[in-house]
């Protein structure tokens, strides 16, 4: 420890590596857009950026729940179905009237939380692997919804929801304001509250958490319930955005929520990851899909580019850990603690 010859800058060390990751992901999103703008001058106008941010709200909200669950070392594969169910419920229950929102909103939220609870109970108490439990629950509830609605689209969504998604406050579309608010609230909830920290603890080492006496089962159930809640928010927003609802409208979002969480720096085995990272991952994926659209290629090339960029993003993200630890070591003379801990590769999926 060379504290005489070097002055330690606490600011750099205090910054978590995950925050750097998140910033880098956001930076790559911005870089991608800049490159596209050079190639294609009509790309990247304020209007388009606003459109990109507005349409990313569904992923931003749904990925929060997925992030919480992945933090525990689990996964939630029912998010797509829950989003669709929430959209169908809010459309069917409000049927074009704003007054009905007062009771339709809580009913929808509670139903989706209930689905999340089923997930959590199965994972926590029956010890069923989260992959299978959430898959089974999603499939089963899709069947329930199919039986009740025969899949036909529901009535008109309450106008208030539609206005929420399309109106602006002093020029800024409301969804963008919502995203910022959600980002702040979500980050605080995950990173700064006691409950949030307990989730990190459980994800890092379940054995240690048990020794310390954390209520593992209760927190697991809560995390999955939260995921159901976020998915229902996302579903309702989607219904408001498209002024309609169908039973398959949530399907395109499941894989992207997983990708957003992982690109944002979280570990699938649990214990690491900031919501800011997931948020950055969601924005990154939204920008990526827009760029791919603008390139006007056939679907085959679109897939190849999309898959390739996901892999590149992952590579950069892993390599920058080495970069950061090197930088950190130069500045402080200390080896960062996390590089000597063994990689706990035991997945609880």
């Amino acid at each position: 420890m060379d504290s005489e010859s070097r002055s330690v800058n606490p600011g750099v060390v205090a910054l978590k590596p995950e925050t750097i990751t998140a910033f880098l992901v956001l930076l790559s999103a911005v870089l991608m857009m800049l490159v596209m703008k050079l190639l294609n001058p009509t790309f990247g106008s304020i209007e388009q950026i606003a459109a990109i941010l507005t349409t990313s709200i569904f992923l931003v909200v749904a990925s929060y729940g997925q992030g919480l669950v992945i933090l525990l070392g689990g996964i939630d594969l029912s998010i797509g179905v829950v989003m669709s169910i929430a959209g169908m419920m809010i459309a069917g229950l409000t049927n074009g009237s704003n007054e009905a929102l007062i009771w339709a909103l809580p009913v929808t939220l509670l139903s989706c939380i209930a689905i999340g609870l089923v997930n959590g109970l199965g994972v926590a108490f029956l010890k069923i692997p989260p992959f299978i439990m959430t898959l089974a629950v999603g499939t089963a509830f899709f069947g329930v919804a199919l039986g009740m609605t025969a899949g036909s689209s529901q009535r008109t969504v309450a106008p208030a929801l539609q206005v929420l998604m399309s109106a602006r406050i002093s020029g800024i579309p409301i969804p963008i304001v919502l995203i910022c608010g959600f980002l702040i609230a979500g980050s605080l909830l995950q990173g700064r509250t006691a409950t949030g920290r307990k989730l990190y603890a459980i994800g890092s080492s379940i054995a240690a958490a048990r020794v310390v006496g954390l209520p593992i089962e209760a927190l697991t159930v809560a995390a999955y319930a939260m995921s159901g809640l976020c998915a229902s928010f996302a579903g309702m927003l989607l219904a408001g955005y498209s002024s309609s609802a169908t039973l398959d409208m949530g399907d395109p979002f499941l894989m992207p929520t997983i990708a957003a969480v992982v690109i944002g720096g979280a570990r699938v085995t649990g214990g690491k990851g900031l919501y800011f990272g997931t948020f950055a991952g969601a924005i990154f994926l939204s920008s990526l899909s827009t760029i791919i659209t603008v390139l006007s290629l056939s679907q085959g090339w679109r897939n190849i580019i999309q898959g390739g960029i996901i892999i590149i993003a992952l590579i950069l993200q892993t390599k920058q850990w080495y970069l950061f630890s090197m930088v950190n070591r130069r500045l402080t003379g200390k080896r960062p603690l996390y590089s000597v801990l063994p990689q706990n590769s035991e997945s609880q999926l």
Partner: protein
Amino acid sequence: MRRFQWCLTVAVVFTLISSDNRLYGQGDQKYKVFLDMSYSGNTWQAAAANGIKALAATPPYDKTIEFKTIISGTDVQKQISDIQSMVAAGAKAIILYPLSPTALNRVIQQACNKGVLVFTYDSTVTEPLAYNVSNITARYGSNTAQWMVNKLGGKGEIIFNHGVAGTAVTKTYDEQAYAIFRKYPGIKIVGDFYGNWNDATSQEEVSKILAAHPNVDGIWTVDGTYGSLQAVIKNRPDRLVVIAGQSNNGYRLMMADPALQPKGLQGISSSAGPAVGGYAFKVMMEVLLGKKKLTGHNVEYPLPWVEAKDVKVCSGDRFENGCNVFPEGKVPPLFLDTSLDPKFLPELSLDAVQTGNPTPGATIQPLPEPKYAENLPGINCQECKAPADALEPNLVAPIPVPK
């Protein structure tokens, strides 16, 4: 613990064996007819299935057949397995929505060789022994593209909304539309995306492209039309577009809305409608009961074609007196007006296509002679050639290329 598991297994097995086995009819002479759906959970599929179920329960068919619906899901091997199960269970006729034009050929051939009548609706198969009922041969791509070009006067910027990639339908329609657009150098496709027949996705993508190309004049879609138009209305309400696409109720109402037309909205409502399912079912039943003999295996269902001037709001629950759209609020905006067909399917009412219940008091009406479809290699036939003008429109006369 292990003994408990054994007991549990035995108990479950016993319960299942003794369950009611309705599949093997108690000696009725009813024909066993199956509806095999693959995709489920979207408006189109639900309306088609409901129409077929309602018809199956309408007299006299409700006494003639024992009708059952199976959902195979989106895995083609499950559909193969289900068709084998249906044949093994004694099916006389199967009407299905095939997941692939070619993958089911062998199992369908086996079924037909055992005397089972196999009909497909909307999506087709290339197996020569099967019967296809669809309007895929009605040249949707060419006709709508030409209609758009005519309305645009041969020049303008267009957004192209593809359907689901990797399907025969998307390949065919895209090919036809591109062929027409390419003939007019003044037409520029400034953006294209894969809307996957999904309105929310279409709305998102059109908003993003519109933001980059504020002077878009037209949008070509197969489905997701309502969403595409919503994107324009929400982002550029004073200057709307020329648009071709589906027959959602909300879309038709917007097309005919006198407040929107002065802003430049010109729409054509076409695209495959769920009523093709009911029509295919009726044709199949007529063949099964010996009332009709088909001379060809590919039947063409007419392409819906409604322009703004043709839109007429209905006052009741049925499409009668030439009306073809329901007033706002009576049905959801995504409801497909082409679920009902007053000409071929007078037995269906609004309630029937929304719930699958038969219309009280209706009886099955006979169908006129069917129109047979042209060849589309890879779509409805294997060793065949498409007609020479397969890419030309046959509903719309083309305008000359502007100088």
